[in-house]
C-alpha cells in the first residue's frame, strides 16, 4: 500500500442539508397542544407533561414543594405504593421546575406506557399534600439547601440570578432559610389545584404508538388543560456591577458574568449564537483556549444563552483556583474586548461554521433529539424552519458581523458580575 502523508488532513465533505422531521400536532384545547413523534426505531417511549407551575408563581418555596409532592399519595395509597407500582412497570419518573414552568417526564418501554400513564394520572389527581409527606419533603429540601450553601457554584448562581432579574422581583427571589419554616399544606394544596389540575400547557409524546393511544392520552389528561393562555413578563433589566459573595474557606471561586438578552424570536439570535460559540461554547473557544489551555486557571469555562418565554440572558460561568479569581476576570474582559476590537480570523470562523453545522446535524439525530429541537422552537410559536434559518446564518456570517454583535451586546459595563469564594 502507498505510504500516506500523515501531515495532511483527509479531505472534508461539507454538510449539504439536514433532515428535520416534523412531529404530529394535536389540539387539546385552543392553547394546549399534544406533540407526537412516532418515528422511534426501538421500544423506548417518553411522555412529558408541561404545567404553568413555575417558581414565579406562589410565595416562597410553594411551587418547588408542590413539584416534589406530585407522587406523594394520600391516605389510601402511599408514596411508597405508587413507587412500587411504577417500578413493577419498569417506569421512571422525573419532575423539574424553572421560573416559568414545571415539567414531568415519564419513561418506559412502549408496552408499559398505557398502564404507567393511568397510574401517574390517578396518583397526581388524588394527591392531597398530607402533613406527613409535606414535613418530610420540607426537611429533606432544607438539608439539601444547607449542603448547597457550601458550594461556591450555588452561591454564585444564586447571587447572579438575583442581580440579573433585579427588575422583576418574582424572578429575582432566591431561596432563603425561612422558605422552610411554617409551610402550610393548605397553601400547597391550593397551588396544586390551580396550577397542576388546571395548569397543563403542553404534552409531548415520543414512541412508536398508534393514533388510538394518542387519543387516549388526550382523553386522560385533557381535563387538566389550562384554559386561558399564559402571559409572561418582559422588559427585564439586569443590575450591573460586581457582586462578591464571601466564602472564606473555599479553595476555588465561582464566577458568573452576564446580562439580559433575547431569545429565538430576536433577529440577532442566530448570529449571536455563533458569537457565543466563539466566546465559550466549544472546546476550542476563546475562553477555554486562554483560561484553561494557556493559563491552567480552571478545569472548565463556558458561555451560554438561556431562553425564557419573552427574553433570554447571556452568561459566562467558571470555577477557578481562588488565587486566579482576579486574573480570570481580567482575561474574560480581555477576550470580550478583543472580539470588539479585532476581526475574528476567517480560519477560526470557518472551523466554527463546520463545527456548528455538525452539531446541528447531531441535534437532529434520533426522535428524542428531534422533538427537543421542535419544542425549543415551538415554545416561541416558531416552526422547524427556524433551524434552516440557523443553517443560513452559519453559512453567511462574516467576521465583520461578529464584531458588530460583540460591540452591540457585550459591553463590559452592562454586565452583572458575581464571584463567590
Amino acid at each position, binding site marked *: 500500500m502507498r*505510504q*500516506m502523508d*500523515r*501531515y495532511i*488532513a*483527509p479531505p*472534508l*465533505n461539507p*454538510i449539504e442539508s439536514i433532515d428535520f422531521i416534523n412531529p404530529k400536532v394535536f389540539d387539546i384545547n385552543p392553547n394546549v397542544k399534544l406533540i407526537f413523534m412516532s418515528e422511534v*426505531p*426501538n*421500544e423506548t417511549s417518553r411522555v412529558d407533561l408541561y404545567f404553568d407551575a413555575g417558581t414565579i408563581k406562589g410565595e416562597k418555596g410553594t411551587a418547588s414543594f408542590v413539584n416534589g409532592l406530585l407522587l406523594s399519595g394520600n391516605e389510601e395509597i*402511599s408514596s*411508597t405504593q405508587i*413507587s*412500587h407500582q*411504577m*417500578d*413493577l*412497570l*419498569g417506569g*421512571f419518573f422525573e419532575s423539574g421546575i424553572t421560573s416559568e414552568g414545571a415539567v414531568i417526564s415519564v419513561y418506559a*418501554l412502549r408496552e*408499559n406506557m398505557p398502564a404507567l400513564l393511568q397510574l401517574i394520572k390517578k396518583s397526581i389527581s388524588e394527591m392531597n399534600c398530607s402533613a406527613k409527606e409535606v414535613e*418530610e419533603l420540607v*426537611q*429533606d429540601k432544607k*438539608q439539601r439547601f*444547607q*449542603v448547597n450553601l*457550601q*458550594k*461556591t457554584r450555588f452561591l454564585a448562581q444564586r447571587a447572579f440570578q438575583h442581580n440579573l432579574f433585579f427588575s422583576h422581583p418574582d424572578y429575582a427571589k432566591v431561596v432563603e432559610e425561612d422558605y422552610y419554616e411554617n409551610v402550610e399544606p393548605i397553601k400547597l394544596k391550593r397551588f396544586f389545584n390551580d396550577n397542576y389540575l388546571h395548569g397543563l400547557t403542553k404534552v409531548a409524546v415520543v414512541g412508536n404508538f398508534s393514533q388510538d393511544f394518542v387519543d387516549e392520552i388526550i382523553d386522560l389528561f385533557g381535563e387538566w388543560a389550562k384554559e386561558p393562555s399564559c402571559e409572561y413578563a418582559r422588559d427585564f433589566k439586569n443590575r450591573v456591577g460586581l457582586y462578591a459573595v464571601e466564602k472564606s*474557606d473555599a*479553595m476555588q471561586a465561582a464566577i458568573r458574568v452576564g446580562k439580559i438578552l433575547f431569545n429565538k424570536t430576536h433577529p440577532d439570535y442566530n448570529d449571536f449564537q455563533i458569537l457565543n460559540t466563539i466566546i465559550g461554547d466549544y*472546546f*476550542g473557544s476563546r475562553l477555554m483556549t486562554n483560561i*484553561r*489551555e*494557556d*493559563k*491552567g*486557571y*480552571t*478545569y472548565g469555562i463556558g458561555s451560554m444563552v438561556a431562553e425564557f418565554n419573552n427574553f433570554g440572558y447571556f452568561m459566562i460561568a467558571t*470555577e*477557578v*483556583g481562588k488565587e486566579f479569581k482576579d486574573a480570570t476576570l481580567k482575561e474574560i474582559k480581555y477576550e470580550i474586548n478583543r472580539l470588539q476590537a479585532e476581526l475574528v480570523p476567517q480560519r477560526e470562523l*470557518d*472551523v*466554527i461554521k*463546520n*463545527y456548528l*453545522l*455538525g*452539531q446541528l*446535524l447531531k441535534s437532529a*439525530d*434520533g426522535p*428524542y433529539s428531534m422533538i427537543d429541537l421542535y419544542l425549543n422552537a415551538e415554545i416561541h410559536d416558531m416552526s422547524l424552519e427556524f433551524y434552516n434559518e440557523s443553517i443560513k446564518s452559519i453559512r453567511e456570517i462574516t467576521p465583520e458581523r461578529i464584531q458588530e454583535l460583540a460591540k452591540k451586546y457585550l459591553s463590559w459595563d452592562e454586565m452583572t458580575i458575581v464571584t463567590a469564594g
Partner: protein
Amino acid sequence: MIDFERFTLKNGLRVLFHQDLTTPMAVVNTLYDVGARDENENKTGFAHLFEHLMFGGSIHIPDFDAPLQNAGGESNAFTSNDLTNYYNVLPKENIETALWLESDRMLSLAFTPKSLEVQRNVVIEEFKQRYLNQPYGDVWLELRPLAYEVHPYKWATIGKNIQHIQDATMEDVRVFFKKHYHPANAVLCIAGNFELEEVKMLVEKYYGEIPAQEKNVRMLNKEPEQTIFKEKTIYRKVPADAFYFAFKMPERKNPEYYIVDALSDALGREKSSRLFVELKKEKKLCSEIQAYITGNTDVGLLVISGKLHNGVNFTDFEKALWACIGDFSKSFMSDDEMIKLVNKIRTSKEFQEQGLLNRAMNLSFFELLGDANGINEELEIYQKITVHDIQEIAKRILKQTNCTLLRVIADNNETNG
C-alpha cells in the same frame, strides 16, 4: 440486540464495527486497557493526567481538537480505575478525520513541556473542583484506602494527592505512553452507516502501519479477603452527618457480579427499595439513602450511602441498617421485588442502547472484558437470577466482617437544629 462485526489487524488492534443505517453521525471509540490501577503507588493520578495530554498534539498533528471541529465533530474522554476511553462523534462523511487523528496519537504523542505544565494545573483545578471544594467531595479519597489494603483501587483516578500530579515529569509521561498506548492494548469501535468492507479498508489505511508491540501483562497486588470490620470517622464542615458502608464484592467477570448488582438495586435503587422504605419513610432515620455498586473490573464494592436526619445518631441508625440488610439473609425477597428489578433493568438498558455513542462504548467495554457480545447476554443473566441466589449472596456479602464504614460527622452540627 446490538449487532457487530469483529476483526483484528496484524499489529494486534482489535476492531469492532456496529452498523446503524438510520444515523447521519459516526462514532469512533477507542478504549485503552489502562487505568489508575496500572499506576505506581508513588505516582498516582497519571492515567488521567495522561488522558489530558492526549489532546495536546501527536507526532504529525499539532492540535487534536481543531481538525475534528473543522470536520463538524467533537471529542472527549474519560479515565477510570480500570480503563481509559476516547470518543469522537462526527458526521459520517468525515469519519476519516477521526481515524486520522486517533491513529496518529496511537502512533506517537508530541506534546510540549508547556502542555504538560498547563495540563498539570488544569488537573489540579479539576481535583479541587470535584474533590476538595465540594461538601463531602473527599469521601472517596478517604474510603478507598480504608476499604482496600493492597489493591491499587485504594487510590482514586484523580490521584492520591495533588503533589503526585505536581511532580509528574516529561520522562514519566513518555514511559507511560510507551507501555500502554499501542495497538494490542486497545479496542477500536466504529459505529454508523457504513459497510464492513469500507470499514476494514479505512482502518487498515490508518492503523495498519502502527508498529506492533507486545501487550503488557498486568500484575496487580491481589486484595486479600477481608475478615474484619473496618471503620473510620472523619469530621468535616458539612451540614449533615453522612455514612458510607462499603462491602467487598466479586470481580466483573464473576457470574455473581450480576447477582450483587441486583441485590444493590433491591437494597436502594428506587423509592420502593428496602432501605429507602424502612429507614427513610418508616423509621425516618435518614434524609437520603441509596445503594449501588462501583462496577469495577477487579474486586469491587457494594456501597450504601446517605445522610442522617438532623438529630439522629449513628448508633440508632447503624442498628436499624444492619437489621434491615440482615433480612436479606434471613428470608427470600418477594416475587414482586424480583419482577421490579428485572423490569427496571430492562427499561434502562433499552434507553441506554438508544444512543449510538453508548452502543459503541458498551461494545468496546465488553470486548475488553473478553467478548463484545456480552452486552447482548446481560439481560438474560439478570432474568435468570432467583430469590434464592439473592439470599445466598446476601449472606456472604452483607456481613460486618466484609464491611468498611466511613462516617462523616458534621463539625458544626449544633447550628443546624
